[in-house]
């Protein structure tokens, strides 16, 4: 089936504006993750959704960041009042965390959204 898709692929915005990034996970995957990657750096965990459980928001850097996952499928990451330090590639991943799957599961990544805040 189709892989994880993200939109837009690139987003340029002005400082202070709000942005929404979208992620379509692999159908049937119950777990969805958002990460952020600054230039030349590793991935920074932002938020994790698993089924109908409350999301793990422990990685969100400030209250300007929020995310939701509707109907257990599509997820939207919203950044309010964007700042220049928010510029990064935002990566979404999904996995199938069944009882038999190992903790953390094999994650399937989307191509990312490159956000540039001017």
């Amino acid at each position, binding site marked *: 089936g189709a892989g*994880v898709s993200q939109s837009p692929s690139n987003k340029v915005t002005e400082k202070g504006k709000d942005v929404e990034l979208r992620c379509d996970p692999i159908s049937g995957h119950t*777990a969805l*993750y958002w*990460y952020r*990657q600054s*230039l030349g*750096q*590793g*991935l*920074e*965990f932002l938020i*994790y959704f*698993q089924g109908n459980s409350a999301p*793990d928001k*422990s*990685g969100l850097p400030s209250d300007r960041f929020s995310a939701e996952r509707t109907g257990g499928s599509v997820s939207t990451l919203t950044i309010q009042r964007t700042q220049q330090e928010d510029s990064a*590639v935002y*990566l979404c*991943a999904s996995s199938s*965390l069944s009882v038999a799957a*190992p*903790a*953390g*599961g*094999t*994650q*399937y*990544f*989307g*191509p*990312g959204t490159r956000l540039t805040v001017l």
Partner: protein
Amino acid sequence: SQQGEEDPQALSIQEGENATMNCSYKTSINNLQWYRQNSGRGLVHLILIRSNEREKHSGRLRVTLDTSKKSSSLLITASRAADTASYFCATARDTGRRALTFGSGTRLQVQP
């Protein structure tokens, strides 16, 4: 902060040579995974090794895990120019956060 730290940060080799990348981590884990990233975009899963395993192979990839030293290595044998990419290790804990914790990556350049 990043749990995993890769070493070296950058590696340049000739085609046909072997490439070895190392990863260290800090807390107990359920499993450790290696991912590859081309051109700063999406990551591709390469291999997963569980905490009770010591070595695993997949094609030209060999991964070792030493839980007593909290370290892992990824060996790519007979490298090809197409192996040029960034390689990341990621750890999954037994409890707590289910998301992976990624290291800072090794940038591998394979010269044709």
